[in-house]
């Protein structure tokens, strides 16, 4: 095996791929575009509409059977346009008003029902506003009664309960982002390797250029190795793009979160230098594995289309185990570290949570390297098998 030959093949394939639109799209454009779109979309539609719902003047149908005072005025104060109605429920159901309030029962202890279509985000937020307004009214009344009876107000609050979140901000954001990014890494890394792998193997068969390189002084192992290295580069580049894109969209996305008055969602970017380095290291075996696997399988196909029909289902199947990272409370144990893809997406999540173990990390790395070695042996075998290479 000569390094010079491998390098020549590597550089030629890189040049060839950089001129292929499909590869550029799957490697650069997808991760650079999809992630920001998800974030901006979230930011725009979710948080924008929450913040709008907090200020918007909603129409409200009010039915008041009892003599309870002050309901209408306190709702109006809370920013609702109140209009009397016989049946607030049907008013909401028929979309005549956004919300409905129904005060019924005895004057002494009436029941107040709030009607809201909770499948609508805005209505849910607005019904929260009604509740707040009514609770304020209730409190004012209680205070009034207490004052009249000469009881001090503090009897209402004999003690205060406070919840303190001990998870550092990094962990909070890691929980949310880690789950997502582990999954996205798997998806993008497989996809990033897929098109280059197809192009360099089945694509080359289809374009009838395979014999040319096979009859050159380059050896088969050198050829496969060069091609695999290119697929690894593609997979790796895709993941770097994913990180960059994630960082950027996260940064701008968070600005939106803050302005949307959602303080509990404010998060830090959970990437210190050490976490970054560890993620970087764990990406490498995964990139090798996905690249080699894609090359091995794509070599068996005789055309670009056939390779696509092999690899697309593989991609879908491989993405399912990556979803394990979405499950809360799952820990990366020794057994799990032996399952390819699951181990990787879980490890990424735990690294971002800052809650990981060296055993899990090392086992994941080692097992992925072993799988990569098996895939590599397979790829070389496929490439040396002339029945497969010259299948017609």
């Amino acid at each position, binding site marked *: 095996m000569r390094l010079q030959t491998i390098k020549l093949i590597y550089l030629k394939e890189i*040049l060839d791929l950089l001129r292929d639109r499909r590869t550029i799209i799957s490697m650069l454009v997808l991760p650079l575009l999809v992630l920001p779109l998800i974030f901006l979309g979230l930011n725009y539609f979710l948080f924008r509409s929450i913040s709008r719902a907090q200020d918007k003047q909603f129409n409200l149908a009010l039915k008041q059977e009892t003599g309870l005072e002050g309901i209408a005025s306190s709702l109006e104060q809370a920013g609702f346009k109140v209009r009397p109605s016989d049946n607030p429920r049907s008013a909401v159901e028929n979309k005549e008003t956004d919300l409905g309030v129904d005060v019924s029962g005895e004057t002494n202890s009436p029941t107040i029902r709030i009607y809201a279509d909770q499948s609508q985000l805005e209505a849910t937020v607005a019904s929260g506003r009604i509740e707040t307004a009514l609770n304020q009214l209730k409190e004012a009344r209680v205070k009034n009664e207490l004052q009249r009876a000469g009881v001090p107000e503090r009897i209402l609050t004999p003690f205060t309960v406070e919840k303190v979140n001990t998870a550092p901000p990094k962990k909070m954001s890691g929980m949310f982002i880690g789950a997502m990014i582990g999954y996205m890494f798997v998806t993008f890394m497989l996809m990033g390797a897929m098109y280059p792998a197809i192009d360099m193997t089945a694509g080359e068969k289809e374009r009838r*250029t395979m014999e040319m390189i*096979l009859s050159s*002084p380059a*050896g088969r192992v050198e050829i496969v190795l060069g091609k695999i290295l290119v697929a690894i580069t593609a997979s790796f580049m895709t993941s770097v793009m994913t990180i960059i894109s994630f960082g950027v969209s996260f940064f701008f996305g968070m600005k939106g979160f803050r302005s949307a008055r959602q303080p509990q969602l404010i998060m830090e970017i959970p990437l210190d230098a050490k976490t970054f380095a560890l993620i970087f290291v764990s990406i490498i075996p995964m990139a090798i594995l996905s690249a080699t696997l894609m090359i091995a399988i794509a070599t068996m196909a005789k055309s670009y289309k056939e390779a696509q029909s092999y690899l697309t289902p593989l991609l879908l199947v491989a993405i399912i185990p990556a979803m394990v990272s979405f499950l809360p409370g799952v820990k990366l144990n020794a057994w799990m570290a032996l399952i390819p893809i699951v181990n990787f997406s879980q490890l990424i999540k735990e690294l971002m949570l800052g809650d990981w173990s060296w055993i899990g990390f090392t086992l994941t790395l080692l097992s992925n390297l072993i799988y990569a070695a098996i895939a590599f042996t397979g790829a070389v075998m496929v490439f040396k098998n002339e029945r497969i290479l010259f299948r017609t």
Partner: protein
Amino acid sequence: MINVKDLTKFYQDKKRGKIVAVDHISFEANNGAIFGLLGPNGAGKTTTLRMLATILQPTGGTANIGGHDIVKESQQVRRKIGFLSGDMGLYHRLTPREILRFFGRLNGLNGAGLNQRIERLFELFDMHQFADSKIDTLSTGMRQKTAICRTIVHDPPILILDEPTSGLDVPTAHVVEGYIRDAKVAGKCIVLSTHVMEEAEYLCDRIAVIHQGRIRALGTMDDLRSMTGKNRLREIFIELLGLNETTNNQG
């Protein structure tokens, strides 16, 4: 020099069982001469040439190319040969210059020597105008010129050409044939396959007529004429393939 001895290739096919593609073929091809494999489609010509180019492994027998065994010293063999196929593709997204650089370097050339060689080839085949355009944008003739240059960029002593003119129009085929004759004069050992009698007669010094994996006749054109007692190329061919009996029976 090429020395082929009992070269054999068979496949196992699930449905059709054992398929013999090449059946104990032996021949010699000399330097400064063109040796032709002539036969109909599926006769085993491409399989033979692919084995000589070390792309396929022989099931039996072997060949010696420029002093190296194709099975045991495949890498040294590949250094000595230039392999070309008429329908062989080129990297679509690269330019002729990039392709020649790549194959030149794979063959151990580099630096000024390689650049000079490439310039000479561009001169020889009048390729300067499209040397830096992507293959995608070139005509068939331009591509075939590029393919030839790719085959000979390292100036190999042995040329293995699989139907080098198939699918080409007359002017382009003429360029290719011109080159093959020049290579012969330059003392190279050339083996080519064709299914066109006229091309075999026009180019080859010696011809092996191959059918169903076996050599049916071997010799100069005159040898073949006296062997069959026929004069016209088509008749010789039909005679050697044993096709005329069936036609007679049917007729």
